[in-house]
């Protein structure tokens, strides 16, 4: 299952961009990509290397049962908001559910690298 490059709206954007480029100086590819991103996510924070971004990186696998139960009680019939594309917000409204967390069962099975199936 190949990870898509987000071909959804690209066709249209590419067309518009091509028009823009014909009328202006050619934009560096990185800049062009930045404009694309900002067009999709206008709320994106200015500084990607900011502390919010790094703080999220430092926190992995965080589960607060208090948050979880409060969110469950508050939103009985609503869908819990999933992690949006705005990656610069620290977890915020996204309350992880047990399904979101990686399975904690330890691997009792021997690694397939050590097995004989598929070995050459």
């Amino acid at each position, binding site marked *: 299952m190949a990870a898509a490059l987000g071909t959804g709206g*690209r066709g249209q954007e590419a067309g518009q961009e091509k028009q823009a480029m014909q009328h202006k100086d050619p934009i560096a590819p990185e800049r062009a990509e930045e404009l694309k991103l900002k067009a999709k996510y206008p709320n994106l924070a200015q500084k*990607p290397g*900011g502390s919010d971004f*790094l703080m999220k990186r430092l926190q992995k696998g965080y589960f607060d049962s208090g948050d979880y139960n409060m969110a469950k009680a508050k939103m009985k019939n609503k869908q819990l908001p999933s992690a949006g594309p705005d990656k610069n917000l620290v977890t915020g409204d996204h309350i992880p559910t047990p399904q979101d967390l990686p399975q904690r069962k330890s691997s009792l099975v021997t*690694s397939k690298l050590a097995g004989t199936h598929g070995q050459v």
Partner: protein
Amino acid sequence: WGGAAGDSGGGNDIQWCFSQVKGAVDDDVAEADIISTVEFNHSGELLATGDKGGRVVIFQQEQENKTQSHSRGEYNVYSTFQSHEPEFDYLKSLEIEEKINKIRWLPQKNAAQFLLSTNDKTIKLWKISERDKRPEGYNLKEEDGRYRDPTTVTTLRVPVFRPMDLMVEASPRRIFANAHTYHINSISINSDYETYLSADDLRINLWHLEITDRSFNIVDIKPANMEELTEVITAAEFHPNSCNTFVYSSSKGTIRLCDMRASALCDRHSKLFEEPEDPSNRSFFSEIISSISDVKFSHSGRYMMTRDYLSVKIWDLNMENRPVETYQVHEYLRSKLCSLYENDCIFDKFECCWNGSDSIVMTGSYNNFFRMFDRNTKRDITLEASRENNKPRTVLKPRKVCASGKRKKDEISVDSLDFNKKILHTAWHPKENIIAVATTNNLYIFQDKMN
């Protein structure tokens, strides 16, 4: 390079052939089977892998068969064990993954082999030893271990060692725990073979291999106010020859070299390696793609190599203001950064490695491609780790990605690349042209064509 690259191969060009592949064939990959680290030992006889399920598998190269002069020994399973288990930090409500982040071998001192393996929080020293004899002929015990009734013993004998089927045992000899608040990304053994460092996002600690209840903090970049955090440590390594020197890389693309003789806390670097940025090229993505995912000293100790998202850079330790060589791994991705940010691929951490003579460097890419750069000839090659190239001793065909415009026959366009198939971990045998390349859940071994 022996392919369709155009150049007629020089006498020294390596012709890579498929040798072996390990792992399951099926496409449905269990999370635990995702390979997270690959490392040859100092002689190259042993090859260790770690995975997301906390398991270590060690392969051993067969002794060379005199009659089979056309290929070197194959790697077969030697030992496998569960190194780390998942844990839960109840105080902080934090999951601790069992994924093995790094394995580093100790040089062999006696019959046993030793390696360090680490997950996010705990480093373990494992002893791997062989047992090929067992004692037989006890007076008070039966062969199955049951005790004999002493009154039935009428004669005495001396127990003797008899040969048995080889058994390889792995046992944890040291557990180095509770020294890291953040996630460990690197371990590196000092050239004194007595100490080693472990690095997390904000701190680096120095350990003695014999002592588990104490560790010295030698780098601390945690700001007093976490709101001021601007960069994290991404990798660290000891110099191969100077026991007082180590380097660490950052998420901002800098490398700091530190001398432990200068002070106990090496917060002030001795050297700072940073390439000046072209301000006109700056974009939202600049810092993210400049983040260094791996740093490796050359065997000689004169150079170091860094890997950032799009390139590999070679630095001369005597020159801090720019790298001496830069190699583009997959420049065609620069115009896809928006999508790569959306699917998180822009945060993938690729590793890199040197060959034994420091003349060639290798790193992975997407679509199960991996790249090699010859520092002398300046030629590069793209190869693919795929079960379709399964015939041993058939030279691998070079691959080419078409960035834009008309795609030639046999080229693959950027948009057809599979970004789920990433080669993050590769390793090069310390002495021979044998390489180990890890796809998501398979380990490929390639060798150069002999004769």
